[in-house]
């Protein structure tokens, strides 16, 4: 039994309004609402254990440090790795930049290849473009299949001996597909390359086991799973982390340095956590993970699947809709609304929905290369989380039915 009513009471935002109407938050791909326990964990740092970490000269600092290190273990347990393989970052974007720079600079040379797809988020494209500029390596795109999916077959076809890095999203933030990372990892390793996985849209929604997936790196963001912003995780196999250069240098990540320019860095994970980290954000992420674990990732995934199936089937009944991914694996549905055959601009529709309390995002969702595939400049995205309900979907459907160019324009008066 999924106790949805009980769960919803944990989220103070669900009692709020948007433009005077009860809030219906369907932009969970962008960021998620926070349960009370996460808020309490952040407050606990502010009200009970404020101090910097990495030093135990006094008791308070020890408490903060201990809480911070415990968070590492909670993450390790959550994704099934060793705690020294958990690097806290400021988010997925930071993690991907760290990998591209720190691994790529040392291991890539001219004419080596980096494989990505057009379905990637900007944060999983631009760092590779720059790495290519810096090293003379090339970024190549693995073709998607006709539905927009990343398939093992296409990955295999794209691999060759020059490929050193393959970086793919586990869950697409526009099309909601889950890639078969395990099979892809095997193929990538067979070709002698490493696999970086962007888990920003998967880790919050499905059980993730890095041992099972056998990916080399996995990155994700706290704020997309009920946690604070400014915290994310970069998992890396320890032997790869050991050989990786830090992107940020400074206090806390070095053992010593001298005036001659010599620097001795700490081992992973400390080496990658320069400066004061987001301490309360890390503690909030720990609480978020424990909250998800208490409900159970399997239950969350199942509930979200049912909700997604319901949403898709209801949306398909509309006659003024184009759905770009009628068979998503997770709760992300990209669509546009038409008026007498003409596609309405997503932003106009989103503004109309907002007037009815519905929060959905329009645009290209930072996956700007995907439009080659979809043949449209932008979509409206409905992205679900486990606190959403069928009733909220019903409201969305009801309002979408009334969306026309006229009604979208009328809301600006």
């Amino acid at each position, binding site marked *: 039994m999924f106790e949805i009513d009980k769960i919803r009471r944990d989220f103070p935002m669900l009692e709020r309004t948007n433009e005077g109407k009860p809030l219906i938050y369907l932009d969970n791909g962008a960021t998620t609402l926070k349960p009370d326990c996460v808020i309490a964990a952040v407050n606990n740092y502010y009200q009970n254990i404020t101090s910097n970490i990495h030093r135990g000269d006094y008791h308070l600092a020890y408490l903060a440090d201990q809480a911070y290190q415990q968070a590492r273990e909670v993450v390790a347990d959550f994704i099934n790795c060793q705690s020294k393989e958990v690097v806290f970052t400021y988010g997925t974007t930071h993690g991907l930049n760290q990998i591209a720079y720190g691994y790529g600079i040392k291991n890539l040379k001219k004419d080596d290849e980096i494989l990505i797809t057009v379905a990637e988020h900007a944060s999983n494209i631009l760092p590779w473009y720059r790495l290519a500029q810096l090293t003379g390596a090339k970024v190549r795109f693995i073709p998607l299949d006709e539905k927009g999916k990343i398939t093992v077959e296409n990955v295999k076809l794209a691999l060759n001996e020059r490929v050193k890095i393959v970086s793919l999203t586990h869950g697409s933030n526009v099309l909601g597909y889950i890639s078969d990372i395990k099979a892809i990892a095997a193929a990538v390793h067979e070709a002698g390359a490493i696999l970086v996985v962007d888990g920003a849209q998967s880790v919050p929604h499905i059980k993730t086991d890095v041992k099972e997936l056998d990916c080399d790196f996995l990155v994700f963001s706290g704020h997309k799973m009920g946690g604070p912003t400014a915290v994310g995780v970069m998992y890396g196999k320890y032997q790869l982390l050991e050989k990786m250069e830090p992107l940020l240098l400074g206090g806390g990540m070095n053992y010593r340095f001298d005036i001659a320019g010599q620097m001795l860095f700490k081992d992973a994970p400390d080496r990658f956590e320069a400066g004061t980290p987001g301490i309360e954000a890390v503690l909030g992420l720990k609480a978020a993970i424990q909250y998800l674990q208490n409900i159970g990732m399997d239950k969350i995934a199942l509930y979200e699947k049912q909700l997604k199936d319901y949403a898709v089937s209801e949306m398909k009944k509309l006659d003024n809709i184009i759905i770009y991914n009628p068979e998503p694996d997770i709760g992300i549905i990209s669509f546009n609304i038409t008026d007498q055959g003409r596609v*309405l*601009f*997503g*932003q*106009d529709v989103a*503004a109309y929905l*907002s007037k009815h309390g519905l929060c959905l995002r*329009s*645009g*290209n969702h*930072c996956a*700007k290369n995907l439009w080659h595939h979809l043949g449209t*400049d*932008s979509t409206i995205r409905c992205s679900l989380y486990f606190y959403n309900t069928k009733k909220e979907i019903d409201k969305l459907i009801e309002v979408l039915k009334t969306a026309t*160019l*006229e009604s*979208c*324009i*009328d*809301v*600006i*008066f």
Partner: protein
Amino acid sequence: MNSLKDNPILKREIIMDHYENPRNNQLIDDENYRKIHLYSSSCLDDIQLQVLISQGVIADVRFEGIACAVATAAASIMSELIKGRSISQAEEIIENYFSMIAQKDYDEQLLKEAVVFEGIGRQVNRVNCATLSWKGLKQLLDEDEKR
């Protein structure tokens, strides 16, 4: 003009008309035009604006791009309103437009059809759409002055 401000049906029709049949909606390949490429922070609206200034008069205004109904209609209305004006007249119109958006006093007579956006300041998240092309125009004129 009062009738327009208070007539939502008429306002909607004007916006729809400009969205579906945008005026001055084709760029020209002419070096004499000042050009600016405008992106909204949404990463999506993407409008190119061209202005031809000749002897202190805005002889032509052109635009093209991908944008929502509000941004497209605003650009279209702006282009019609500004074309043929002297720079100082244009600047006065711009100033009044931004006053209107900010819900301050403004001269309705000057803004003509542009008053359809008079209420956009209450729909705060659309303000960017309704001002994107106007900001671009202002920037082009400001740059012109510096020369």
